[in-house]
């Protein structure tokens, strides 16, 4: 298959052993809701949401080179729009717009993508530092407006989402949401993979490396930035919609908080920015850190996360992926050089 051909310098993602391991992980994940406790299922679900956030932010920041600090806004808007559709009465919308959960999730994600589509041409007038800080400001504006619109979001009290997908006594709503999140995560990973391996991904990397040079060779920077922004926002919105319908509670101060942007960034930096497997590995490590660190360092866990991203970006800019790849490539040097 042409799509699975190896690209130079990225052997890990197509290594047969890696594909095998990925299949095993997916199979194991399928059993999670049926073999573990509810709290553990929730923990792994959070990990899957992290994968979606990391992979989508990495597409925009790692591949297209646009450091957005507004990812949380798209996560949160996906959550709120889907919640308005499944629970319209709480926001004063007519019951006629009510949708079942699954279509509502998709519409929530589409709403995030639409926001990106509208804002993109304006915000991409900014580059570099200005883009980063502009997206941070944009997310802050959205958070403040949503917090102020108590009628739509419940304000500081929050928004209770109704939803029950439980199939039986043993298969609870959370279990079904877990399986939906797993499917969505796989879709996110596969679609992103196809994009970065295809000509669009090449365009994104070109504008990342040197926007002026790419532009003079006929690559339209805005087109590729918009592509990355819209797709990235879609998956961030989908992640938010899923998470909102798992927790069944939203609050503008937490659902739209900068924390989600920070998490996405930490995940990608730990895993390896601009590498395909990076955010997936990073999510696993981040989940461990997020839950394990507090046991070791008490309340200082986010300070430790801060120290880790600083050390990683300075000394290990290719992250966990870089370390693993070095180790694996050394062992399988033969297959690697065959494609040079």
């Amino acid at each position, binding site marked *: 298959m042409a799509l699975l051909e190896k690209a130079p310098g990225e052997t890990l993602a197509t290594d047969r052993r890696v594909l095998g391991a990925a299949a095993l992980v997916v199979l194991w994940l399928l059993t999670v809701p049926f073999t573990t406790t509810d709290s553990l299922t929730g923990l792994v679900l959070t990990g899957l949401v992290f994968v979606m956030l990391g992979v989508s932010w990495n597409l925009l920041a790692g591949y297209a080179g646009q450091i957005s600090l507004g990812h949380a806004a798209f996560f949160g808007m996906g959550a709120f729009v889907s919640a308005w559709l499944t629970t319209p009465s709480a926001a004063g919308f007519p019951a006629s717009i009510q949708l079942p959960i699954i279509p509502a999730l998709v519409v929530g994600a589409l709403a995030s993508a639409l926001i990106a589509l509208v804002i993109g041409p304006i915000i991409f*007038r900014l580059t570099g530092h200005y883009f980063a800080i502009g997206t941070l400001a944009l997310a802050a504006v959205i958070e*403040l407006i949503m917090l102020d619109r108590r009628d739509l979001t419940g304000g500081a009290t929050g928004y209770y989402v109704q939803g029950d997908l439980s199939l039986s006594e043993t298969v609870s709503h959370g279990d079904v949401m877990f399986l939906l999140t797993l499917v969505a995560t796989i879709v996110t990973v596969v679609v992103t993979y196809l994009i970065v391996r295809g000509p669009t991904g090449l365009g994104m990397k070109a504008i990342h490396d040197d926007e002026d040079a790419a532009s003079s060779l006929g690559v339209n920077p805005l087109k590729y930035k918009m592509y990355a922004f819209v797709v990235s926002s879609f998956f961030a919105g989908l992640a938010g919609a899923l998470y909102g319908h798992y927790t069944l509670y939203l609050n503008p101060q937490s659902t739209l908080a900068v924390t989600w942007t920070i998490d996405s960034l930490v995940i990608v930096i730990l895993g390896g920015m601009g590498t395909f497997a990076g955010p997936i590995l990073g999510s696993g490590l981040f989940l461990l850190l997020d839950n394990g660190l507090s046991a070791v360092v008490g309340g200082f866990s986010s*300070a430790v996360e801060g120290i880790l991203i600083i050390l990683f970006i300075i000394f290990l800019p290719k992250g966990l992926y870089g370390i693993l790849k070095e180790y694996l490539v050394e062992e399988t040097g033969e297959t690697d050089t065959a494609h040079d």
Partner: protein
Amino acid sequence: MVATDLLTQSVINGLLLGGIYALAALGLSLVFGIMDIVNLAHGHMLMVGAYIAILVFAATGITPLVGMLLAMVLMFGLGVLLQKVLLKHVVDEGIEQPIIVLFGLALILQNLGRVLLGGDSRTADIGLPGSGIDIGIAYMSFPRTVTFVVSVLLIVLTWAFLQYTKTGQAIRATAQNRTAAKYMGINTDQIYVITLGIGTALAGAAGALLSMLFPIDPYVGWSYLLKTFAVVVLGGVGSVLGTLVGGLVLGVSENLGALYLGGGYRNIVSLLIFLGVLLVKPEGLFGSSGGGE
């Protein structure tokens, strides 16, 4: 319709507040102009400076104006250390790495603030005798007037330092063209250390002044980062005079926004002005496009 005296009062309050905003933004503007780095931890540095003043005041009752001097010294040290230990590895290496290093630092400062000092907001008092001035059309409260005067004084001192001292000239030369400055025998590495030290010290000073007017909690960093960046964008990167004007414009427009639209819109107004200017005229209303070209 809002009464005229209420309007003049809000404009005066906005101008007084704007002076501190200008001081708060000056460090960010200098670092951006000279090192081509947006200090994402600037708001958090301001928060640390505020806490230094608050703690000194709470422990001894000494006015935060003295605490401000201590904050400036300590924060200068933090800035120097930050450049020497971390940023020297990533400065001049594109934008991704410095942004992420400073983002990490912001996380660390916020977390340390929350754990060591608690999540509740705290505030200091000016701790000096004195009364406000009635200027006929409006009333200038004592703390607001004192903090405004100190802010403007520090801004003028920074301007004079850049304009008339040898180090200041070397800093401006580095901002104009770092390669040429290097060829002229300027130790640009040293200039970066001093610049970040000054930038951080100014953030600490502004934080200490703000602690006399507003409650401070460990999470104020992001909001002050955006406010100060708005001032930088309004005033133009690296321009001292522009920063002063930008600060005053932001202070007044925030107060008018709060007056006409309600207190909840205070921050939204400043952010929208910021985004608007950023999109229409990214080089700022008053400055040139700054250094690092």
